[in-house]
């Protein structure tokens, strides 16, 4: 049985009822089992004082991971990029803080201790080194897995890319090549959730985390109402004859329909695994945390407006739209 279980049976319930104090959290920072010298190391700590300015002028509070220190950092959190076969350390520092977090590398499948799910291992209180091996090239992301419903909504995620041995420019080992690359992590905000405390609801208080009513729709941290149409972090400029790889991540909680403005995508894989045969599509309908690797080889110059529709999880109606562009010269 898992070595920490008995301790958590006794200590797992902390604080008291109501919305003050955290319940069902598992603070610890043990030594990493079988720790070795890694091929690559990422340092991450937490900021909880960030904000994103929306196109309507409003500011929405966000949390995330930084490469060091607690100063408000970028949103989404800085990407991790490694090469297939490397042994990776994600050194996560959460020392002396009033809050708990973890890092779950979504789609990476390590040992229980390194999977970053609080109630199966621990919420990091101190510094923990997640050790894992990048077995399969592809598109992943990492996110906090403590009070996940709130922490991932608050923005605690970043891209995670595993290149094949050939390096950037090739999607999978022996697989398709690309010249231009974009990461579109599409997410929706319910700004009414963004004033909650890190442990909101964990003791059983009804804080409305069953009911997401999004009012902002983003692509890779940029408001999709207007800004993402031209923001260079999202919008793509390329030339005819080039091949574009879009690493599309559904980073929200709702179904999404992404439509490529009349371009056809050749989808080569999903969730870090190549397909037996690529599929050609003009749109994709996805759900939370799915990733799709889409290659475009446009033959005609033009401006292609990409739309991401965020869908009601019951009736599929469109709750909001984010837009960006692929400019082909």
């Amino acid at each position: 049985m898992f070595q920490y279980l008995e301790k958590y049976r006794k200590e797992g319930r902390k604080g008291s009822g109501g919305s003050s104090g955290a319940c069902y959290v598992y603070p610890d920072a043990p030594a990493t089992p079988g720790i070795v010298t890694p091929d690559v190391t990422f340092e991450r700590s937490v900021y909880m004082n960030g904000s994103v300015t929306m196109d309507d002028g409003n500011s929405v509070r966000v949390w995330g991971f930084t490469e060091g220190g607690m100063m408000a950092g970028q949103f989404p959190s800085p990407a991790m990029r490694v090469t297939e076969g490397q042994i990776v350390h994600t050194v996560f520092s959460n020392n002396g803080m009033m809050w708990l977090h973890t890092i779950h590398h979504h789609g990476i499948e390590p040992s229980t201790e390194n999977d970053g799910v609080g109630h199966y291992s621990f919420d990091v209180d101190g510094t923990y080194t997640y050790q894992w091996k990048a077995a399969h090239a592809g598109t992943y992301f990492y996110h906090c897995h403590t009070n996940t419903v709130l922490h991932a909504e608050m923005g605690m995620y970043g891209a995670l890319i595993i290149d094949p041995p050939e390096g950037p420019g090739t999607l999978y080992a022996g697989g398709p090549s690309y010249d231009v690359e974009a990461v579109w992590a599409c997410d929706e905000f319910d700004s009414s959730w963004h004033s909650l405390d890190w442990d909101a609801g964990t003791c059983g208080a009804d804080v409305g985390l069953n009911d997401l009513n999004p009012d902002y729709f983003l692509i890779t941290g940029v408001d999709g109402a207007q800004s993402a149409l031209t923001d260079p972090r999202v919008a793509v400029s390329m030339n005819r004859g080039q091949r574009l790889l879009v690493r599309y991540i559904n980073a929200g909680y709702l179904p999404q329909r992404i439509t490529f403005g009349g371009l056809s995508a050749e989808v080569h894989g999903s969730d870090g695994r190549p397909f037996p045969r690529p599929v050609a599509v003009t749109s994709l309908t996805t759900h939370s945390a799915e990733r799709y690797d889409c290659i475009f080889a446009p033959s005609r110059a033009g401006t292609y407006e990409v739309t991401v529709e965020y869908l009601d999880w019951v009736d599929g109606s469109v709750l909001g739209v984010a837009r960006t562009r692929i400019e082909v010269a």
Partner: protein
Amino acid sequence: MKRRTFLRAGAAGVAGAMAGAGGLLAWSPRAHAATVTRTLYITEGFTTQPDGVDVYARSFADADNRLQVPGAPFIVQEGDTVSVTIVNTLGTTHSFVIPGMVDSGPIAGGETRTVSFTADRVGSHLYHDGENAPYNRLVGLHGGFAVMPSGSGDELYAGSPTFRKQYTWVMTEIDPAWHERVRNGRTPNTAYTPRYFTINGRSMRVPGHPDYGNPDIDAGYAPDTRLSGAIGDRSLVRILNAGMAMHSVHFHANHVEWLARNGQPRADVWRKDTLMLPNDMGSLDVIYPFEPPPDAWPPVTTGYYPMHLHDEMTQTAGGGFYQFGLATTIAFK
């Protein structure tokens, strides 16, 4: 009018369900089709949610003194004649429907009816009450119905990738306001806002909670939901959505082989860690391969991991209580 006896789903009812189901679905192929005879009692009662709230429910139960949500799972073989006797112990009209296979038509309160049909559609299905749709189905009148290919014990459909074990996961949501309207014979009149999320009728518990580890209550330990295996114990999971919301199903530690969606075999088997589950009786069929977790260093063959929905609203109960939603445990033994 008959005085209603409200039942409570508890250890007795769940234990009965497990005796009928044998935990995970057990199956031995037969050379010939057979006649399968079952009786289902339409019952009502209350289920206790993780925050202590009792919610009204109806069920297709194995006995008339039991509330059993979802109804006891069926597993039959292609070509079998299935004879189901439905005893409606309530005062309201209900039915027994498997789309494309059988529709009993309305069964009035107090009535008993037997339907016979041929199980001619291989794969994973939901049986449900088609009356007062979708409300009767949503308050609990649904269950899993698996049809094995003729003479096969290890395939989803003839020629599919093979498995060693199989499970049926019936997922649903609960909006208690809708259940209360149905209890009072009225039509729900509020926006659908589910507050509880269940897999085979249960939600997750975690260490520190008094019900943690209780297989009658904790979806992480219930043997019909918990995936438990050693390396190589390839497990077919028939994922059925009795609810109204589209969900995202996320497996930790292994990618699954995605065999079918809404009963349709897929042209190519994709390996996925996260899959979109269609709503309103949609389904997915996947094989969890129980391979060593590929990114572990040093390599491991044992461990404990979650399967949970990634539309994380489903990981709550009563608007909070993260970790007490629709999830289960994957145990590498």
